[in-house]
């Protein structure tokens, strides 16, 4: 029995199908890499799975039971990281991470600083996020992801704007998460070189999953 299974997922956009009868399963310790051309519906899939977008139909199973993607109990176990890092320009990296994680679970300032150090953000941890580059902001968001303590990561283009070191940071964060029995569904264009047994490909464009 897989931890996460999606069945019978349909999403319309206007008159046409964007996602038609999508089905896939993700076991523990596996990163499902969602591939597909621009506009194929990768972001839509992630937003549907995080309950931000209402699909026309979806059978979602999580930890053996059927759940609604809008169930707060389900949300408590997942972290969604969208296109833009959810950061407040006027707050420092520390304040941002402390808040983003804090509304989910109790977290100490030293944990926040340790997480920022892990993602290579200690140098600008106390600067207003406004002054940071796009890649630096992405790193700050990754710190919140790592600290969230959630089991299911839904990542939309997590390596955007990151330099090579940043990309390998994402890979190591994901692998660390998988080793601890986590699950990842990520829309990633490039091959990140995650060990193959832990990577599934899903061609959203055709609505077929390739194990």
């Amino acid at each position, binding site marked *: 029995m897989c931890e996460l299974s999606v069945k019978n997922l349909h999403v319309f956009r206007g008159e046409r199908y964007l996602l038609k009868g999508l089905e896939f399963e993700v076991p523990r310790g596996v990163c499902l890499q969602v591939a597909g051309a621009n506009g194929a519906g990768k972001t839509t899939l992630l937003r549907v799975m995080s309950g931000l977008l209402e699909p026309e139909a979806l059978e979602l199973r999580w930890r053996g039971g059927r759940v609604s993607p809008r169930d707060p109990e389900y949300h408590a176990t997942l972290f969604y990281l969208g296109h833009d890092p*959810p950061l407040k320009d006027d707050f420092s990296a520390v304040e941002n991470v402390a808040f983003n994680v804090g509304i*989910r679970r109790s*977290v100490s300032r030293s944990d926040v600083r340790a997480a920022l150090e892990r993602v290579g953000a200690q140098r600008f941890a106390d600067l207003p996020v406004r002054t940071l580059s796009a890649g630096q902001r992405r790193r700050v968001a990754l710190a919140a992801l790592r600290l969230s303590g959630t089991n299911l990561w839904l990542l939309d283009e997590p390596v955007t704007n990151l330099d090579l070191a940043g990309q390998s940071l994402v890979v190591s964060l994901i692998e660390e998460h998988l080793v601890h029995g986590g699950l990842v569904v990520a829309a990633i264009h490039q091959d990140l070189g995650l060990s193959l047994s832990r990577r599934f490909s899903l061609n959203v464009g055709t609505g077929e999953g390739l194990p």
Partner: protein
Amino acid sequence: MSAQRTSTMTAVWLVLQRDLRLATRRPAQLIQPLAFFAVVTLLFPLGYTPELSKLRAVAPGVLWVGALLASMLALESLFREDAGDGTLEQFVVSGQPLVALMGAKTAAHWLLTGLPLTLMAPVLAIALGVSVAAMPGILLSLAIGTVSLSLLGAVGAGLTLGVRRGGVLLALLTLPLAVPVLIFGAKATELAIAGESLTGPLYLLGALAVLGVTLAPIAAAAAVRIGLE
């Protein structure tokens, strides 16, 4: 990996605290509605008449319309920024009830606009020739009335999330709904100025505020969900 999940109360407190702290980083946004309220109110002695007895007669309407428009001015930024940078999406998937977080944001909005507007009203009332004896009544009616305005505004701000430059639409949606608050609020202020008992309209204002506290966060949360799709 499992850690202590944040209670809803703590999350509400964190959101409230965050919004207040954000406001202190940008005092200009805080002062603008207040300055607007002051300027609009003080235009009346210039544009209508400097005669205090005449001004006193229109003071309730002037104060309430001024406060209503000023509170509207600050509304657009209530959810827009959080929607733009993805914070609202994080609220939705935080595992916390969105209704509670919307309530927290609305409370912050009231503390940052409704309450300062209320505290400023007596000063402006003096400029309109209102006697000091009427001040407690004016403060009380505005304090209760602006709660309803913030709550109504939160629903409107949620509904206009998906609209680019929704400021005017927001006003068009919210102002008609604010009419009961305006009527009872102005009536209470009028009675306060006349030195009569204002319990009647005050109770009605209170009832509107309670109705708003009960229903508006639910409506705002639903509107925000739709706005984010």
